[in-house]
């Protein structure tokens, strides 16, 4: 295969996908060209439409092609609960895996002081405006547990509390089916300090 051919170009383009190396990219290309040109056309069209038309929800910042996402529009969700997450993928995970029925706010990242990611990148002003509408009774912080993510949670908790709104944070601790001796000391400390009444 020579450089600069369309095939080579397609292989390189596919490698922007996570987990796709040169070999698997090549396999995909030969599959589409050899066996599924219709599928390839549909993929190309959908991909283009998605890249052009999907933006962020005006209220919660998750991905949507409308002004407001389905979750923000839905009448059946509790508007007094707001769950703050890092990514649209987190929204999907919580929706799929739990019975949480409130609204979301997506930061699209986390504070990373040494890499120049500050509150301005995380839609903090938008979040504050949302809190100031007066509809929200509780903010649930569902960011991860790395130091930067804890700093993010801490930062948000401060201004939520200032507004007299309850702040809670998802529990950190021993994984289901896990044994204590394999849990690292940091996680164990969190699990112990965040212990709950046995029910």
């Amino acid at each position: 295969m020579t450089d600069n051919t369309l095939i080579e170009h397609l292989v390189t383009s596919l490698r922007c996908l996570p987990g796709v190396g040169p070999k698997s990219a090549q396999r995909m290309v030969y599959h589409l060209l050899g066996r599924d040109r219709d599928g390839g056309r549909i993929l190309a069209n959908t991909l283009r439409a998605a890249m052009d038309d999907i933006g962020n929800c005006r209220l919660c910042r998750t991905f949507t092609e409308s002004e407001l996402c389905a979750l923000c529009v839905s009448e059946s969700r509790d508007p007094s609960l707001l769950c703050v997450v890092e990514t649209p993928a987190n929204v999907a995970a919580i929706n799929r895996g739990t019975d949480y029925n409130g609204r979301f706010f997506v930061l699209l990242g986390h504070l990373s002081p040494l890499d120049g990611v500050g509150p301005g990148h995380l839609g903090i002003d938008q979040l504050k405006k949302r809190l100031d509408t007066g509809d929200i009774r509780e903010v649930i912080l569902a960011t991860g547990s790395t130091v930067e993510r804890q700093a993010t949670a801490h930062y948000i908790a401060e201004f939520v509390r200032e507004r007299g709104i309850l702040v809670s944070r998802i529990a950190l601790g021993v994984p289901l089916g896990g044994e204590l001796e394999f849990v690292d000391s940091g996680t164990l400390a969190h699990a112990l300090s965040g212990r709950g009444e046995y029910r």
Partner: protein
Amino acid sequence: MNVNHHPTLEPAFVLNRRPYRETSLLVEAFTAKSGRVGLVAKGARRGKIPLAPVLEPFRPLLLSWRGSGELFTLTVAEPDDSVCSPRIWSVKSGFYVNELLLRLLRRHDPSPDIFEDYRQVLKRIPVPGQEEPALRIFEKRLLAAIGYGLSLDQDAETGRPVEHEKSYRYQPGRGFVEDHGAPCISGDFAITVRGGTLIALGRETLQGSEQLREAKHLMRTILRGYLGEAPLASRMLYR
């Protein structure tokens, strides 16, 4: 110093880390004996027991590595449970000290004293009332360790001991000179400070809001001279 192989575990802290290639991390570590080192943690973000959760800033670790050149390959990383892990809730100051080390220490330049000072400052940051004095002491000691130690008890012009009630003006590269109220040369480094603050900073006995405020302003001005033009990211972000 040529560190080609480092088979023993060395006490260390992670100063910063960022994703590297698809599953790895690039770690800037500060170690007890080898100073600052750049380490590639291969596959740290994936695998059965990913290393990424261990490689967190502010957590006492034991690390070993191999390789040569500018970047080494991390071979072992485990939490150092023999040392109490500082609990830093408001991590602002923690990131600030990390950034100072990243900006002021060169790689592969051992500074065991600063390692101990770093451990101390992390311990004191979360203690109510100790954060500010601890930061000033750390800044002062760090400057001394990289060869820019301050002479805080002597007038640089007359050689006389610094006196509590007098005012002194900071002159970059020279030290502190008694301020007679003469029109001061304007510029970034024009700063005066009371003798009492200089003495307390030297003896590491800073106390009271006025002294702490003066010392903070002073150290910020001095550090700006060594950090160069780029502002500190950890300071800018929260404004």
